[in-house]
Structure formats: C-alpha cells, structure tokens
C-alpha cells in the first residue's frame, strides 16, 4: 500500500514537514477522507469479543457484516461534533497499471485463507484472529452501505473517476478542501498540499500517537527535490503501479535522485551493477514495435513504454473531477433510523442518541466558528524558528551517533 518507506524517509530527511497536531486544531477544516481506507480500518478494528475469545465482526440478523457501518457512523458524528467537515471520497475504477499490485494482494488473501483454515483446525484463537483480520476486505457491498449511510447523514460523498487519493489530492489543490485524510502516502505523490494521517480518536489518550499533518511543500523542500524528482523517488521507493529496482533502499534512492535527477538518468548507472535488479518491464523490447495493427496500437504502446514511465504518468495526469459541490446537509433522521435499526440491527436507543448528536452538530455548523488563521497571516518568529531548527539538527546528529554506536556494538558481539 502506498509508497514504501516514504514516511520514515521524510521523518529522517525532512522532519520539518511533519507536525503533530491536536484534534481540536482541525475544527472548521474541510478534509477529503479516503473512504476505502477508513472502511477497511473499521472492518479490522470494530469487532466484538473479549481477550482470549475469538473476536467476531459485528453482523445483523442475516449475518451480514456491519462493523464498517458502526465505525463510519460513530466516527463521522465525532468529526462533525468537533467542527471538522469531512468529505468522503470513494475509489472509482482501478488503473490498469495497478493489476500487478492487486494480483499480489489476492495472493496474500489466498495464503491468509489457507492459514485461517489451518488455525481453525488447530483451534488457535490468536492465529484465527490474526488471519481473519488479514481477510478483511472492503468490497462493493461495504462501499455501497457506507455511501448510503453518509448520504443519509448529510455528509458529501464524492465518487472518484479513478483512485480516491488522487481525487482527494486534486480537491485539496483546487482549494475545495483543506487537506487529504488517509494513511496512504500516495496522496503526497499526487501533491496534496496537506496530508493528515492517523485521523482517529483511538489514540487521543495515549500521548505517543497523535494526528500527523504533513506539508507537501516543506517535504520536497526538505528533500531538496522538484515535484518531478519527488514522483520519480516515490516510484523508486516502490508504489502500487509498478515494480521497483530490487536492491535500492530509501537512502540510496534519494541519493541517486539527488545526483542524477531522473529515473532515465539513473538507469544506465545501475543497470550493470550486480546487486541491483531492474524489473524486465522497465526496459522495453524494441523488437515488437513494427508489427502492430491500429487496434493493437494502444496495447502495444503499453507494452513498449517502460513501466515506470506509465506509473509516472499516472501520478502526473490522473483522471480526477474537481467540478463538485460540497454541501453538508440536514441528516434524514427517519430514513437513517430505518437503515441502522431495521436493516443493520443496531440498538434503537443508541441510534436515537447518536442522531440527536448529529443534529446538534449540524445546527452548530450552520453558524460555524471562524478560525483565527483565516484572518491573520502566519508569520515567522525568527528566534523560535532558529531554536527549533537547532533542536532538529541536534536530534538528527544524536540519531546518527546512536546508529553508529549500535553498529559498533553489533560488530563487537559478532566477534
């Protein structure tokens, strides 16, 4: 999923782009949330059952899963209560280039299925739990359920032409929303000005894991790259759209991009180095080029264009639709109750209470509290900035020193 190792690379190389923010500070913000990611998380997280007991997904009387409805309903109400304005973006058709990645995911599911069978035979609850979580999948039905739920709640639902992250990033670039909310680092590759991660309430109490805000401009400035170079870096790190060069880790990838500027220029350098394996479809066969009819031209083009160029094209020119109107409407209480109580089998009392909350949040949002930073511009405070920079540098130096010491220790213990 996403870009391999990008989050860590950014925290090491461009720490200034990552900020931890309090939930409260997001009030009044419009955020485009990747719905598939959220549904998937709920399918895994919202389960019944205590410790040492097999956790079960929530289901209605007919045995249909309702974990995602429960999660989506409750979390969205909390978002609205905090004054945050969510927009949910659903995936459209998957790009052709993603088929390889999707095939890999299917393979993993097959494996998990087998393991689950084995675990069930052995009656090992921990293992059953682990593997059934791996089998969780946000399918068509789950997506449709959530769309219906959100529309009844009066929350805008956007159907992306293709990938949801790309659509969310485009909405953000167009100024329709303030940020993209997903765990998927792809959103940064699609150049969303701001990416919000860990947008949940689960970790509010423990101080360790707070909501993360990533600033795209500061990220590429921190890495010292242009947008084009950043996209190439992401492809080298490993994206959903094509394989990457085996043997090149994040540090090397960054170094190569900084030195050479693009994948085209890097290829000749790494092609003959034995420890690096360039995927076959990165260097197309020139021979097939002649024998093409008109119909096959398109397919042939795909076959002869290096995979990384196609992937890059997907990042640069993704099909998006920014001509949308975002409106937060009054919730349809009656319909909503019908859906949640009669169809999903939720507790009527609780649904009633939650709908009350939802109505209250909607009323409060009609006269929304303005934010201070929409009136006054952020300026720099030179003394505090200098101090912060120094601290970040110190931390980095310490980390490096520690890493060196660790290496030394390891070396010694081996001897």
């Amino acid at each position, binding site marked *: 999923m996403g870009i391999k190792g990008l989050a860590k690379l950014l925290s090491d190389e461009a720490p200034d782009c990552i900020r931890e923010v309090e939930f409260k500070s997001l009030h009044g913000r419009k955020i485009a949330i990747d719905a598939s990611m959220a549904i998937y998380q709920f399918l895994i997280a919202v389960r019944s059952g205590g410790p040492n007991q097999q956790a079960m997904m929530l289901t209605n009387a007919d045995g249909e899963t309702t974990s995602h409805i429960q999660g989506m309903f409750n979390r969205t109400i909390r978002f609205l209560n905090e004054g945050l304005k969510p927009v949910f973006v659903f995936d459209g058709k998957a790009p052709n280039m993603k088929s390889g990645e999707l095939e890999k995911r299917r393979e993993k599911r097959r494996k998990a299925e087998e393991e689950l069978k084995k675990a069930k035979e052995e009656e090992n609850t921990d293992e059953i739990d682990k593997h059934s979580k791996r089998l969780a999948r946000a399918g068509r039905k789950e997506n449709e359920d959530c769309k219906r739920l959100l529309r009844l709640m009066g929350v805008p639902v956007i159907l992306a032409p293709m990938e949801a992250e790309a659509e969310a990033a485009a909405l953000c670039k167009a100024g329709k929303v303030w940020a993209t909310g997903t765990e998927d680092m792809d959103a940064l590759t699609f150049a969303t000005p701001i990416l919000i991660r860990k947008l949940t309430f689960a970790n509010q109490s423990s101080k360790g894991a707070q909501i993360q805000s990533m600033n795209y401009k500061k990220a590429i400035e921190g890495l010292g790259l242009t947008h084009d170079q950043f996209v190439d870096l992401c492809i080298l790190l490993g994206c959903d759209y094509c394989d990457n060069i085996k043997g090149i880790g994040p540090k090397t990838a960054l170094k190569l991009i900084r030195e050479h500027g693009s994948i085209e220029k890097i290829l000749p350098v790494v092609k003959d180095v034995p420890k690096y394996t360039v995927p076959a479809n990165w260097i197309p066969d020139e021979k097939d080029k002649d024998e093409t009819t008109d119909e096959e031209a398109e397919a042939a083009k795909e076959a002869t264009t290096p995979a990384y160029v196609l992937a890059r094209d997907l990042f640069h020119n993704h099909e998006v639709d920014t001509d949308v109107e975002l409106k937060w409407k009054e919730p349809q209480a009656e319909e909503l109750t019908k859906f949640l109580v009669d169809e999903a089998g939720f507790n009527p009392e609780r649904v009633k209470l939650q709908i009350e909350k939802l109505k209250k949040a909607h009323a409060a949002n009609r*006269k929304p509290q303005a934010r201070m930073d929409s009136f006054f511009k952020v300026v720099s405070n030179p003394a505090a900035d200098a101090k912060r920079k120094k601290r970040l540098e110190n931390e980095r130096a310490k980390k490096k020193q520690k890493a060196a010491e660790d290496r030394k220790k390891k070396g010694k213990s081996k001897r």
Partner: protein
Amino acid sequence: MFEAQMQDGKIFKAIIEAIKDLVQDCNLDCSEEEVAIQSMDSAHVSLVAVRLSAGGFSNYRCDRPNSLGINTANMSKILKMLGKDDSITFKAEDESPDNLTMLFEGGKTTIADFDLKLMDIEAEQLGIPDTPYQCTVQMNADEFQRIVRDLQVLGDTCTISCGKEGIRFSVTGNIGNGNILIRSNDEQNEKDRVTITMDEPVELNFALRYLNFFTKATPLSSSVIISMSPDVPVVVEYPIEDFGHIKFYLAPKIEED
C-alpha cells in the same frame, strides 16, 4: 543574558493566571524593548497577545532576542509561592537555556529562587496588522465579567452589537433569550464611565465560552476596551498599568448562506 526585575510580582502572576486556561504552552519572547507573549488556543479560535515594555521593569537587560518556552500550568504552580508584596527577577542564558530562573524577594529577610524547565514550542505566530476599528468601547472590567458570566446560563453564543445608544449583549437559547445594554455616559468616576467611539454600527456573534476565558484577566485592570469591525475578530484589551497590555482576539461565528 536576559535579566529583568518586576517590582510588583503580582502583575506577572495575574497574567499567567489569565492565560493559563486558554494556552498550555507559550513562548516568552524577550527583546531589547519588551517581553511579549503571543499564542493561540488549541482550537485556533482565539489568540492572546501580552506586551510588557522594558520600561515596566527595573534592571532590564536583554543582550539578544530570545524565546523562552514555558508551560503555563507549571509556571502557575511556581507563582503560587510568590508572596503578596514580592518582586520577581527573571534570569536566562542566551544560548538555548534549559531553565528560567526566578527570584522572589520580599522585605529584607526572604529570598526564594526557582528554576522552571523550559521547552521548545512550535508555535505559529500570526502577524496582526495595526488597523483601526469601527467601534471601540471602554467600560468597567468587572461589569463586563459579570455580563459574560450571567449570559452563559441562556446559551453559548452571544451577539454583541455596538450602536449609537450603547453596546448590547444578546443571547438566544433553549430556555429563552436576554439582552443587556450598556449605555455610554460620562460619569465623573472613571470606574463607571462608558465611552463609545464609533464610525458605523457593528454586530457580530461570539462564543461565550471564550469571552469567559478572557475575563480571567479582570484583576489586571479596572477597565476593559472592546474593539470591533465587521467580519474580523473582536479585540478585548486589558491595559496593564502604563507599560503594557493583555489583548485577546476572538474569531466571530459566521452566518453561512
């Protein structure tokens, strides 16, 4: 080296008490001319700006501009130990100091010194332009505090309208509604005087919860100055003697079409 002595330590204590419910952490920005604090609350709805000019201190020395990050709750704990008539002397190193040293001195017999651990605070500073306001009202600070406190029983949003006849605070809630009008007058007694200067009438909506936080600064000043212009944050200012002020900015609630 930063070193400054405040003869009347109570003032600093009152400032920290006034802001500690609104902001957890903030920077004391020390420069040659002044000690300043600027910070937003965690929801970025309001902003506190404190200014104490160097002239308000005795033995003021600040060799280079420095930002001292403090936790207001911890600062408040230390200030609990301040005697009624004590002076406070602040001391901090130039190069990224770890501590802010404070000496509390009262009379000739007791000297107490405390080190408060400093922290690095990433705070977004806002540039506030020095624009004139359409309406400015100066009134008794206790009166303002009472109004804000009383109106909270009715609802959470207060409409403040300033016109020729005076300044009106209105709240509409589930149990009913209420208005309090303060007329301008020119009482001899400065404490009760209400002066209104205005170009155009202004009406804005504000969250009472925040206004209530602001009135925590009432002990600092006998009068409060409220400034408003259409569609911009209100300013609630408490002058501090003749050498500083504490200003609270609050973003209005906006009617959506």
